[in-house]
């Protein structure tokens, strides 16, 4: 007994010891743990004091404080109540701003050469191990990007909004908004004629999507009818008992034959020569066109919806009439069209559509497209927007400008009429605009702030607003990024001085309340 007691005591002792050690370790960990190792729960609250805070949500606080709790800003103001054990950061003389947003970026993009179409998700193309690139972007205060799919003209893939948050194992980047937008390029990389063709193709794609929806709806209806009929028949069957068996067999054969015969390439053997000859000689041209027309439009056939549908239903009825009433034709399910499914989401305004267009003609086309299919669009590029700023304002289309320093001399057709007065004209007309790196080069993303300075300088507006709250609003993430306010995620940048001043550097970047970047020697 004694022995056991003693061992029990030792056990207790040991447990206690372990507990104490555990507590010590925990305290130690709390005190010294690096930002990466901190679990969300264990994360200490953080208090920033004495900083000049550019909130973007209201007036700039010349000497303000922020309390960060659980990755969010729980309090912001001239003074906050710091909880016990909170980590204090005294930032006298420093400026705190929201993280910059590159609203049209290719940072970390591994390039697009193929045409993935709307089924492509740009996140698949994001290199989470482009460490140096991310670090450089953070070094210039960029915390959030819209990753654009890029790619050849036409309907491209879907973009995502990415936060440059460090992840475990040297990776970085976390998706903030999945499926942020569908990207369409009708503006660049082509001759004017080809651009028109591309636009035609884009429009056809949307039409096709509508057709697909129609065929799906038709199918749903037919299916309902079909199931009703089945139920009817089973009722009948219950009533009739087993006397219809022979008939059924016969019906089956009758019913099957046409179905099998239709797709078979060889018709009846009765008229072999003429038919074949016809198909070969006169039909060869048609043969090459035919499948495109009917095959892609599902069961309906043809673009004239009314006609096709009418015909179809007529056929159904006829066959119903001809066959025995017991024979029920199963409606054929249209084969899934994943491209159209995505486009339908755009038509339903579940997905924003971003259209890259530079020339006025292309922008007008983009506006037409939006009107025709009731799309929620954002214009990218918009090099010549100053020529039609009023029209854009009227359509309430936001604009994301790309690179604003261009020479206009050695450039492609679409940039030839580049003008420095573009931002000013947009501002004047009341178009919502922001400026981004333009996705042309993944390296450019980090200088979105400088690009904004140039653009905003020309327009005479506050540059920081364009790359924070304006960009966030256009991206639809203004509830999560772009300003410093209570309840917002704690994404902010600590600058050594005024961010406009070329001499000031980024000292620290916090994303979600965690340190994402720290300048060397800080």
């Amino acid at each position: 007994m004694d022995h056991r007691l003693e061992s029990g005591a030792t056990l207790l002792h040991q447990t206690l010891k372990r507990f104490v050690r555990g507590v010590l370790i925990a305290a130690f960990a709390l005190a010294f743990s690096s930002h990466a190792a901190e679990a969300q729960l264990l994360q200490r609250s953080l208090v920033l004091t004495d900083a000049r805070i550019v909130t973007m949500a209201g007036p700039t606080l010349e000497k303000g404080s922020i309390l960060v709790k659980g990755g969010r800003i729980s309090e912001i103001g001239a003074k906050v109540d710091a909880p016990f054990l909170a980590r204090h950061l005294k930032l006298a003389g420093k400026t705190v701003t929201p993280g910059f947003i590159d609203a049209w970026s290719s940072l970390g993009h591994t390039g697009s050469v193929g045409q993935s179409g709307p089924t492509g998700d740009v996140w698949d193309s994001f290199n989470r191990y482009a460490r140096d690139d991310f670090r450089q972007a953070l070094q210039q205060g960029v915390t959030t990007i819209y990753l654009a799919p890029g790619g050849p003209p036409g309907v491209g893939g879907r973009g995502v909004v990415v936060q440059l948050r460090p992840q475990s194992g040297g990776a970085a980047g976390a998706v903030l908004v999945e499926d942020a937008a569908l990207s369409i390029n009708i503006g660049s990389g082509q001759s004017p004629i080809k651009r028109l063709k591309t636009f035609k193709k884009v429009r056809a794609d949307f039409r096709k999507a509508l057709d697909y929806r129609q065929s799906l709806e038709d199918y749903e209806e037919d299916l309902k009818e079909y199931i009703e009929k089945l139920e009817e028949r089973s009722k009948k069957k219950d009533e009739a008992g087993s006397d219809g068996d022979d008939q059924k067999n016969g019906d089956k054969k009758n019913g099957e034959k046409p179905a099998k015969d239709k797709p078979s390439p060889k018709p009846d053997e009765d008229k072999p020569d003429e038919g074949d000859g016809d198909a070969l000689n006169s039909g060869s041209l048609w043969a090459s066109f035919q499948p495109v027309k009917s095959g892609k439009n599902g069961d309906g056939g043809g673009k004239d919806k009314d006609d096709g549908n009418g015909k179809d239903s007529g056929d159904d009825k006829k066959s119903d009439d001809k066959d025995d009433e017991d024979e029920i034709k199963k409606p054929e399910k249209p084969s899934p069209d994943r491209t159209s499914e995505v486009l339908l989401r755009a038509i339903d305004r579940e997905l924003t559509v971003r259209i890259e267009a530079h020339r006025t003609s292309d922008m007008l086309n983009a506006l037409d497209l939006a009107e025709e299919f009731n799309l929620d669009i954002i214009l990218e590029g918009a090099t010549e927007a100053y020529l039609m700023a009023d029209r854009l304002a009227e359509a309430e289309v936001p604009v994301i400008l790309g690179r604003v320093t261009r020479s206009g001399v050695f450039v492609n057709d679409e940039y030839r009429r580049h003008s420095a007065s573009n931002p000013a004209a947009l501002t004047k007309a009341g178009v919502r605009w922001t400026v981004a790196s333009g996705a042309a080069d993944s390296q450019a993303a980090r200088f979105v702030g400088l690009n904004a300075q140039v653009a905003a300088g020309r327009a005479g507006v506050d540059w920081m607003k364009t790359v924070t709250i304006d960009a966030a609003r256009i991206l639809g993430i203004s509830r999560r990024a772009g300003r410093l306010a209570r309840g917002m995620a704690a994404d902010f940048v600590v600058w050594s001085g005024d961010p406009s001043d070329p001499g000031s550097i980024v000292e620290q970047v916090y994303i979600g309340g965690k340190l994402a970047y720290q300048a060397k020697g800080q």
Partner: protein
Amino acid sequence: MFGRTRFGGNGNDISGLWSSERSVERLIPKRLIPTENSVDCSTSITPRRTGRRWLVRSTAAGAIGCHRYGVAKRRAVLATVLLTCGVTVSSAVGAPPAKVALTGGRIIPVVGDEIATGTVLIEYGKITAVGTNVEIPYDAMEVDVSGKVVFPGMIDPHSARALDVPNENLPVTPFLDVYDAIDPSRLYLEDALRDGITAIHVIVANNCVIGGLSRVVHPIGLTPDEMTIAAPTALKISVTPKRGFDRMTQIAKLRETFLELDDYLDKLAEEKYEESLEEKDEKIDVGPEEAIKRGHELIEPTDYDDQHRNLVKLTRGDMSSFIYCRSAGDVGHAVRIAKDNGFFDRSVFVLGHASYKAVGEVKASGRPVVLDAQLVHRERDPLTGKLSETFVPKVFADAGVMFALQPNPNASLAERYLNYQASRCVRNGVSRQTALESITINPAKMLDLGDRLGSIEVGKVANVLVLTGDPLDFNTWVDEVYINGIRAYRRDDDVRLKQLLGDEPPEVAEEGDEAKGSEQEDVERPGKNDKAESPGKSHSPGDAADDKSDEKPAENAPGGDEEGGSVAP
């Protein structure tokens, strides 16, 4: 043997052959243990192929003497062999003994402790005893290997070089099988044998979305059947974009493939249900949804079509996969896709050298990896402009990830040897044991052949090398290679090697030169006009045919997967 059943109805044949022990026993007595040997030296059929490249391998084939079929052809070849180097073959032609004892050598078994002086006993193609005190049966052929090193046969974990063309143009080809493309006459195979590689995982190259089925082969044999150790082994998948694709397209394609598989299964289920009703002479009574639900249970393994059969197996976990990830960013996608579609637990990642950055992710996934043949990753620091070099295997070794090495066929010489690749690891700080494992037992485990290959242990298949020295010493030569307990290679009989080292009689040299020269024809040469002048050329129609077969891969080869048209002694 397997050829006709690949797509056919009997699904059991495909997986059963290699996974069960039974099949091995079936293989060995029938194929590799000859009951009679009747090589007719006097037969003088005009050979179909008159390449010098046949010499070594044919010798081996003769030694193994598989006589189930194709006798005439093989006789023809053997006749050629005998004509060109009669002496060589006659020593090897005699019936190989069923029992071999390698005595007096230093044994490096890879698994288990090294034996300074010991004996390896091979009986009927299997290792039956390893140790210092091994009783040698009276009927065993005793081979004195004292002063030499006995080492397990090395394994090339990922190679497309035995294929005539490494990749299909179509992106999604799960229905293909490398069986149809393995070219037993590839010089690569001869080189592999000479370098001590006894098992090659032949798999389509990386330029695909979903490639075909792979198989593990010996470097010897006249047909893919003879060569096969295990098949089908794995399905090749690439997360890294195929030529002309970008990552978005590649992964969208992968995703769509598996979505389409679901659609197909639903459709199949519905059809099956309807069929079953038809059999019962009943009319359809439920809507499609219900029909699909009921139909799924009715599907039998034979019902899948060629397009989908292997994908179904993959997603059900009945087949392993080799997933290629060139850069670090690809690893995450590979893991996600594999997990989403249920084949993660049997996947192996084939990594490019830049992927070392994702070592954390790889480690977390717990899956083994096949490393790039290029072991050093170079990149430039954007800030300082300094070039930095990372020795990739060290990173994985430090993280404790199981890895296998590949030989680098593009290197000028040394990196073509798998054991040299391992010795580079040691030089850069990987432990010797890890390095040795990465060329033997690790690849065996990845191929689910860990119980049969990759080490010298009792019960394992007798793929054994006799080396002149330590495997990690560059001066070491492969003296003898035993495959399934039968001597497949002897350095003393290696005519091509002798020729390169200047030990050959002059006539043979000229002919050998020509064979080598023709190998290089695939390369466009500005100085081609001089070619006709080079002495000692004789063009026979047979040669021309040979050359053609080698021209193809060079065009289509990804990653320089061209024919290694040279002896890498």
